[in-house]
């Protein structure tokens, strides 16, 4: 029975050390948390964007600034307000807004800066035209009319 003794002495392979695995994954997690652009503006205007068939996904999210146009709850239904960042604003604030947004972007994003207009369907076009003019004056020439996808019929 000497062979049995030898069999008991067989060396077992140690398990792979996974102690560093959580650290690695945490690093990746933090990377994603920092890199992803979670713009949490608290919306003060209510809007319902139009539907279109030709809409495209907006790429380069870090180069996108948003102008919200819609109704404010508690205000008459036919008055529309502009929201920039977290507060209501007027037409004359748009230029300063575009400039500050542009200044915050890195040099790579600046040329492809896009302003996304999220406006309610019932906003009169005159207001949109004025916003467009203000954007034009501040050289934010790439714009995007925010909309949802409608299935082509």
């Amino acid at each position, binding site marked *: 029975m000497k062979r049995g003794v030898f069999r008991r002495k067989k060396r077992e392979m140690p398990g792979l050390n*996974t*102690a560093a*695995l*959580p650290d690695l*994954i*945490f690093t*990746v*997690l933090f990377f*994603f*948390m920092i890199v*992803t*652009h*979670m*713009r949490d503006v608290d919306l003060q205007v209510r809007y319902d964007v*139009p539907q*279109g*068939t*030709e*809409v*495209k*996904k*907006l790429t380069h*999210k870090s180069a*996108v600034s*948003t102008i919200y*146009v819609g109704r404010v709850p508690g205000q008459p239904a036919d008055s529309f307000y502009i929201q920039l960042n977290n507060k209501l604003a007027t037409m004359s604030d748009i230029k300063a807004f575009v400039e500050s947004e542009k200044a915050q972007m890195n040099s790579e994003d600046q040329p492809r800066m*896009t302003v*996304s207009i999220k*406006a*309610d*369907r*019932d*906003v*009169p*076009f*005159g*207001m*949109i*035209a004025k916003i*467009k*003019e203000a*954007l*034009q*004056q501040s*050289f*934010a*020439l*790439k*714009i*995007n*009319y*925010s*909309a*949802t*996808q409608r299935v082509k019929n």
Partner: protein
Amino acid sequence: MPGLNTTSTADISFMLLIFFLVTSSMDTDWGLPRQLPPPDDLTKEEELVVKQRNALCLKLDANNQLTCNDEPMAIDDLSKRVEDFVANTADDPTLPELSVREVHLLGRCKVSDRHVIIVEVSPKATYDAYFQMQNAVVAGYNNLRNELALRQFKHPYSSCNAEQRDAISLVYPQRISEQALEEKGGES
């Protein structure tokens, strides 16, 4: 004392990672991209004279009624109209002139580079009506470009590379002129 069992930390952080991956891609913005002309054009008066046959005049009045060359039109017919107008396949003398040009990848072909779609919108029209009009015009262009891509490159426009896209947009350039209809007395 045995060490704390940390085997599940990896799983927990994986969960968090997946959560962030999923939520961060959820708020993607969809929309209709447009390019505004530089502000120099605004100060310069519209001196551009466009031949009657080269212009398609779209108007949207205060009641959201669309008129195309002063004829009332339903929004659903607009993209077809834009297609016919821009392509002018039959060389109709009432539709825009085509010029023959050398286009990279496509060789000599007819190019619709003279047409202009003039858009006039009343400030009282709703944004939705304006958006639907823009959408229909873009749909018209996209259909034409897609047809050309399928004919020439045997695959849709969306899967063309940048070079092919450039060639196609030379044949069917988007020429849309938006006039700011302001509440001024001068011109009607």
